[in-house]
C-alpha cells in the first residue's frame, strides 16, 4: 500500500465498500497551500533580487540535512571520557560543542545530566522544540500530541512503553522545553565500557537516549 502523503489517517470506509480496500489516491497532487506558495514566492524573489543564490539555498538545505544524532553522540562520548569536558559541557553547552567543531548557530543548548538516582526526560508540550542543530529532525512520535501530553503527566508509563523501567528509587525529572533553551540528556555511561574509545562509546548513544526515553546499553 503506498501513500503519497506523510500524515497519519484513519481509514474510514463508506458503508458497503470493501473494508480491506484503501481509499483511492488522487492522480494529481492536491493544490499548493497558501504558506507553501508564499515560501516559493519568497525564495524566487530573494533569488531574483540577488539577495541569495539558488545554490546557497541548496547548500543550506544540505547542511541542515547533514545534522543528526551522530553529532550529539560525539558530544556525549567525549563527556563520558573526559571529566573536565563534561564540566564545561554542563556549564556552557554551545561553547563545549564548538570545541568539537559543532556549531549550534545560536541554539541555547542545555545539557541535563543523569545520575544514579535521577533520570531526565525531554518534551515540548507547546509545540515540538527540539535541539535540531545537534540531533537533526525530531522523530514523528516526539511531535505527537500523545507524547507531548503524556510525557509530563505520566512519564513513568511513557518510559515503560519505550522499554525503560526505572526503580522507584530513581527520580524522574521531566524538562518541558517551552521557551528559549533546547535540551539533550547526558545519560549515565553504561557499565562494562571501561577502556572503550570515544568512537566506540559514541556507537551506544542513540537519538532516543539523548531525549531520555531509553538508556544506552553496552551490548
Amino acid at each position: 500500500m503506498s501513500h503519497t502523503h506523510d500524515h497519519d489517517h484513519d481509514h474510514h470506509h463508506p458503508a458497503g465498500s470493501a473494508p480491506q480496500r484503501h481509499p483511492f489516491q488522487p492522480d494529481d497532487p492536491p493544490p499548493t497551500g497558501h504558506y507553501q506558495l508564499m515560501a516559493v514566492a519568497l525564495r524566487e524573489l530573494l533569488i531574483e533580487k540577488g539577495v541569495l543564490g539558488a545554490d546557497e539555498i541548496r547548500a543550506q538545505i544540505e547542511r541542515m540535512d547533514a545534522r543528526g544524532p551522530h553529532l550529539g553522540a560525539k558530544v556525549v562520548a567525549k563527556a563520558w571520557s573526559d571529566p573536565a569536558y563534561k564540566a564545561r559541557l554542563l556549564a556552557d553547552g554551545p561553547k563545549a560543542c564548538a570545541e568539537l567543531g559543532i556549531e549550534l548557530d545560536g541554539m541555547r543548548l542545555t545539557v541535563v545530566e543523569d545520575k544514579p538516582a535521577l533520570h531526565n526526560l525531554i518534551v515540548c508540550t507547546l509545540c515540538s522544540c527540539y535541539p535540531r542543530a545537534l540531533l537533526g529532525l525530531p522523530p514523528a512520535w516526539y511531535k505527537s500530541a500523545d507524547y507531548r501530553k503524556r510525557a509530563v503527566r505520566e512519564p513513568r508509563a511513557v518510559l515503560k512503553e519505550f522499554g525503560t523501567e526505572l526503580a522507584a528509587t530513581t527520580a524522574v525529572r521531566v524538562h518541558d522545553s517551552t521557551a528559549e533553551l533546547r535540551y539533550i540528556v547526558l545519560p549515565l555511561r553504561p557499565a562494562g565500557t571501561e577502556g572503550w574509545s570515544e568512537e566506540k562509546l559514541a556507537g551506544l548513544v542513540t537519538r532516543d537516549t539523548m531525549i531520555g526515553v531509553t538508556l544506552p546499553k553496552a551490548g
Partner: protein
Amino acid sequence: MTPAARLSVKRFKPGQAVRVRRAFPPGHIRTPIYIRGAAGVIERDCGDCVNAEERAFARSGLPALPLYRVRFRQQEIWPGYDGPDSDSIEIEIYANWLEPA
C-alpha cells in the same frame, strides 16, 4: 505588558520559592496552562530573553525579560500522580509570569 508592569518585573535567585500567575490572557502564551497557579523553586537564571509572547505578534519583545528554569514537584501538579515524591518537572518561565511565593 504596560510600562508600569515592566518596572515591576522582579529578579529571583536560585532556590527561591515562586508561584506561576494563574492568568489566562489571549495570545501566543509560552507558559503552559497546566503549570499556571503552581508553586515551584527557581532552578537557574537563564539570562534575559526577548519576550517571545510579544515577538509572536511581530512586536520587538523588548525590553528583554529574565527567563528562569523553575522546578515543580509532580505530585503537586497532577492529582493522583503515579510516581514517588522525588519526581519533578522543570519549565522555562518568563519573569512576568512569576511571583514570590
